[in-house]
């Protein structure tokens, strides 16, 4: 038995780095400090593993060597006219970096699960900017917390305990005020001082109304999205009167009608509030390294997700170069999925085209997507069986640790991608010689 301390949790965007794990016979047997999701991952990850590379022949999977699987994968990718490389939010920055180079080499489109969570938030930021901060800043200073369209008690279980409601800070010893805005009374809403239950698809109207109210504009209407105007005035006053406000928003805003414009409005509201007090906003990023994938794509290509290399240089235009749109238009002719399960998470029509493509899946599990694959390359669990770097939702980078040995012979995402890349380069050089 041994213990490992200060472990970073590879589950959600909170990226708690204070876990203490007990290891027995190269298995995690005890998790200290972790939430339910964290415990589920560390104690349950080793089930339903794929332990041998698989290649589909005549509709059936056959176990093969990594060499054979990689060779087949490289063949698929080299031949493709418009390959899609999707996933990336549940692996290390180092693996993403290899993925970007691969996408560039084969003239593909690389997109992350941002596209399905906070892609619209990025579009909002690109239109109006964002006033934000690291989570410690919130912890030390905020006296007002707003969760809008997000349910941290479920999706980010330790967010409130580590950074907001249940934690004291240097300048904030008293209890903070909590406002929750949602379409139903979530677990988080139950703990709120103020809960605004608004009609679905009406967030934009509420946000704009608040913006007008903090400018002391009068509204011509008596209610917005089911909320009386006087009540909105009270909320506006509460926001203006705080010393430091922090608004966290989730997919309740990005996935509903208005999408990126809801975020545009939320960020504009927060920006406006800075004329009167201090206010910050932050997207509640879901997967543990979706922020890191955005970051590394941004510094290597200039763009955070949905990057299209088909013309030999990076281009970006979600709606045009994003995964779901490409799949719905049936444009791709090959796909590589890393650390994600799009067949289980994309709308069916998009998933259908993905499955029709020659499909390569790099994943430790037999996921729904792996079930559809032509090549399955089993990999290690990043943050458990291999290390690397990940970014917390507030852009703080943290180390992922290798805690236990992976099953014998199993490679990491990064290693697999690097060998695919070199195999692709080899095949391309070969083609140059014998066209």
């Amino acid at each position, binding site marked *: 038995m041994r213990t490992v301390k200060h472990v970073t949790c590879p589950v959600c965007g909170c990226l708690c780095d204070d876990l203490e794990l007990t290891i027995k016979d190269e298995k995690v047997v005890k998790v200290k400090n972790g939430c339910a999701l964290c415990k589920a991952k560390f104690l349950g990850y080793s089930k339903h593993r794929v332990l041998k590379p698989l290649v589909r022949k005549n509709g059936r999977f056959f176990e093969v060597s990594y060499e054979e699987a990689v060779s087949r994968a490289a063949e698929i990718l080299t031949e493709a*006219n418009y390959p899609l490389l999707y996933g990336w939010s549940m692996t290390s920055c180092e693996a993403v970096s290899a993925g970007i180079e691969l996408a560039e080499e084969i003239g593909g489109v690389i997109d992350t699960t941002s596209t399905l969570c906070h892609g619209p938030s990025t579009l909002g930021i690109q*239109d109006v900017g964002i006033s934000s901060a690291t989570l410690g800043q919130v912890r030390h200073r905020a006296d007002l917390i707003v969760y809008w369209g997000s349910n941290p008690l479920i999706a980010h279980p330790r967010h409130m305990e580590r950074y907001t409601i249940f934690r004291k800070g240097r300048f904030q010893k008293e209890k903070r005020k909590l406002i929750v805005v949602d379409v139903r009374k979530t677990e988080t809403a139950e703990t709120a001082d103020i809960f605004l239950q608004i009609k679905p698809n009406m967030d934009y109207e509420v946000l*704009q109304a608040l913006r007008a109210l903090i400018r002391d*504009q*009068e509204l011509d209407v008596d209610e917005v999205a089911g909320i009386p105007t006087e009540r909105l005035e009270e909320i506006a006053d509460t926001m203006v009167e705080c010393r430091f406000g922090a608004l966290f928003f989730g997919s309740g805003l990005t996935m509903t009608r*208005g999408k990126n414009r809801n975020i545009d409005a939320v960020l504009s509201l927060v920006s406006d509030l800075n004329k009167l007090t201090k206010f910050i906003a932050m997207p509640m990023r879901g997967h543990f390294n979706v922020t890191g994938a955005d970051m590394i794509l941004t510094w290597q290509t200039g763009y955070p997700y949905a990057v299209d290399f088909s013309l030999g240089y990076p281009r970006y235009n*979600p709606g045009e170069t994003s995964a779901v749109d490409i799949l719905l238009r*049936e*444009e791709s*002719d090959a796909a590589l999925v890393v650390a994600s399960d799009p067949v289980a998470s994309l709308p069916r029509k998009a998933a259908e085209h993905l499955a029709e493509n020659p499909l390569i899946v790099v994943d430790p599990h037999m996921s729904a997507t792996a079930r559809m694959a032509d090549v399955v390359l089993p990999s290690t669990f990043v943050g458990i069986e291999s290390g690397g770097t990940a970014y917390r939702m507030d852009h703080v980078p943290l180390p992922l640790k290798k805690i236990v040995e992976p099953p014998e012979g199993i490679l990491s995402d990064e290693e697999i991608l690097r060998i695919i890349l070199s195999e692709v380069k080899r095949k391309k050089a070969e083609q140059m010689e014998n066209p």
Partner: protein
Amino acid sequence: MMNLYPTKKFRFPITAECISPDVFQDKKIEEIRRLTVWEGNKQRILGELFKVKESESETKMVVINIHGDVSRVRRIGAYMTSGQIVIYGNAGMHLGEEMEGGEIIVRGNVGCWAGSMMKGGKIEIYGNAGNYLGAPYRGVNKGMRGGEIVVHGNVGNEAGAYMRRGVIKVYGNAGQFAGLRMQNGTIYVQKDCEARVGACMKDGKIIVSGFLESVLPTFTIEGLKEKVKIENDETAEGPFYLFLGDTAEDGKGKLYVSKTKNPHLNRYEKLL
């Protein structure tokens, strides 16, 4: 006059900003066939993807006719300054992006970002247009700066976003957020309009002659108007409610909404 016929049904995105009168000008047909285009990640020449034929023309103006479905072909007519493109079929994204002059006529539907950031000239679409008609590229705060777009069918979301000058006329329906953050210019929607028209508009004019799902709470009623000028000698017959907004950004844009088609808005009348 150059005629282009697609040689096949395209599966991959085709990038072909070379299909522009400015590029074709003074080029021999052989040179035109050799222009670079991209099919997915493969570089091709125009002659591989299109049969190119020259035909007699009465005008000196460069005219390009495209016969067939080019809905996967992007950037046709981008940056053009003169001449004419006529498309007998559907056209792809970014049609006439940043065009400065000349004319594009589409006898079919067009994809998103048609006339994006255009500065001059005219685009006339007989079918429907996608989202972001005349709207700018991501992060850009200058939309349409001149010229005219006419759509006989419907348009998607964010038509005329960030518009600074020019006219967009839609004879069908419009999606959400028409005229988002517009600063000047005119948008006319003859039929119905989804919600959030004029969101964050600072100035300019939007006219909705059909049913409007809802007016943003940040618009204030200003009065009633019998008719509104669209451009030159074209007017829209009312009566119209006149709203001002968007007060969320201290805007003073004018939003005209048909009174007769929108009885659900008559509650505003008590404020007049």
